[in-house]
């Protein structure tokens, strides 16, 4: 049984179709990449899994049980955290306040200091800046804080929307190194990326979306060597 499996997911925004037929499976302990051009439906898929938008059809199974249509706070409680596109930090509040907010659904409150320590070990930079306002930080630090905030709920599955967007190449490398470290610690990751080359380097498995439907899937190596993927998504 897959940790997460999505079958024929459909989401509509009024008359517009956000996604029409997305199917994917995430196995525990893997990094899975969701690839596709802008507007292919990556963000909509992640938002539907996280409970931000209700699906119009299809199924989302979490550890074998349907979770589609549950509100976001219940999804977080079940162990799925989304770090959204553009980070969406609470810019008026401190780094530490942002992290504490990330632990809103942490069932065992005694775990909170340990989660904070864990995040500060991953990102020592955040520890140095714990009293600083989130809105005054650099792009790389904001990405760290967004990741850290999502990790505060002690998730089993971390959803990441465009973790490389708008970051300098050196920072992007750090972020992906962190993702591999999180995987080594046993976390499962599903990441949406426009930059397929990067994503396929770390992904165990990848799915390619086109106009709201899954059109291709395979292991990272398979897709990296696939001529069609190279032509469509890797620029040659």
């Amino acid at each position, binding site marked *: 049984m897959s940790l997460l499996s999505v079958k024929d997911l459909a989401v509509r925004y009024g008359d517009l179709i956000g996604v029409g037929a997305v199917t994917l499976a995430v196995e525990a302990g893997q990094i899975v990449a969701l690839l596709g051009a802008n507007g292919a439906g990556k963000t909509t898929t992640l938002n539907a899994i996280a409970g931000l938008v209700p699906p119009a059809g299809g199924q989302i199974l979490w550890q074998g049980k349907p979770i589609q249509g549950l509100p976001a706070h219940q999804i977080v409680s079940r162990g799925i955290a989304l770090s959204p596109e553009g980070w969406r930090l*609470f810019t008026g509040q401190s780094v530490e306040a942002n992290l504490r907010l990330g632990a*809103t659904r942490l069932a065992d409150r005694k775990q909170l200091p340990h989660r904070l320590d864990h995040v500060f070990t991953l990102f020592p930079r955040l520890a140095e800046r714990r009293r600083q306002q989130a809105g005054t930080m650099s792009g790389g630090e904001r990405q760290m804080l967004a990741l850290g905030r999502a990790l505060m709920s002690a998730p089993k599955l971390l959803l990441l929307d465009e973790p490389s967007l708008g970051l300098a190449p050196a920072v992007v490398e750090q972020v992906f190194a962190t993702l591999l470290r999180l995987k080594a610690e046993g976390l499962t990751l599903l990441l949406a990326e426009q930059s397929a080359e990067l994503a396929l380097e770390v992904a165990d498995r990848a799915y390619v979306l086109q106009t709201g439907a899954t059109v291709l899937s395979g292991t990272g190596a398979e897709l990296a060597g696939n001529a069609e993927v190279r032509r469509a998504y890797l620029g040659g």
Partner: protein
Amino acid sequence: MILVQLVTDGLLVGAVYALLSSGLTLIWGMMNVVNFAHGDFVMLAMYVAFIAVTTLAIGPALFVPLAALVLFGVGVVVYYALIRNVMRGPMLAQILSTFGLGLVLRYAMFWVFSANFVSLPDTLVGGVLSVDGLRLQYSRLLAGVVALLLTAALHLMLTRTALGSRLLAVAEDRTAAMLVGIRPDPMQALAWGIGAACAGVAGALIALFFYISPLVGDSLVLIAFVTVCLGGFGSVPGALFAGLAIGVIESLSSWFIGAAWKDVVVYGLFLLALWVRPQGLLGKS
């Protein structure tokens, strides 16, 4: 000496304006809704005080908390029964809904209490405190100090507690708040409850030295809107400073220019301040 007296009088009234406006600014900051019924919440609280004094014969130590409690309930009910639904509608529906709510409240009071002015017995908190030639009515002193403490407490609650952090999170980014597992509805209902309770306490305190009528909210809420604009929408410290400033300006201008002119001075300065700094004194651009 007269200057010290005028400034002190102004600060005491200004603190009540600050508390009144904090409620308005909190609701605005949480969900970008202007509560046009805020003045009627104040009026409601004044009648709560009046009924409490006339039927239960209790003093301000009891009827001020009672007014806070009743208005907190009113705020929560208004959120769940009215605001939550109209939030999905167009902007105009949101504006008209709170405006309509205010009308319903004031005409309900006309119906129950008629248009007669009533007031609390001025012996309730009577007497004058004299210190070094400074003469302060106990009723205004009590109102000013309590209002100041509660406004400060509201600010501390928002900036120093986990609950405040969640409220501010919903205020800044509802979607991000949902992603960390906060349910926005209870938070917004709480903001309406606290906002209305601020109006409730302010109303009950003002009732100590002011007449009560179904239309009394009008004159008070106008000051609150000016305070919120000056202080910056959504800022409690801004409301505090602007409230105190307006109280002092009112007090000084009514002495030096004439009581009839104090409103002209306040609203004139308000327009001038907005012209220079449209985002408010402490507001973010």
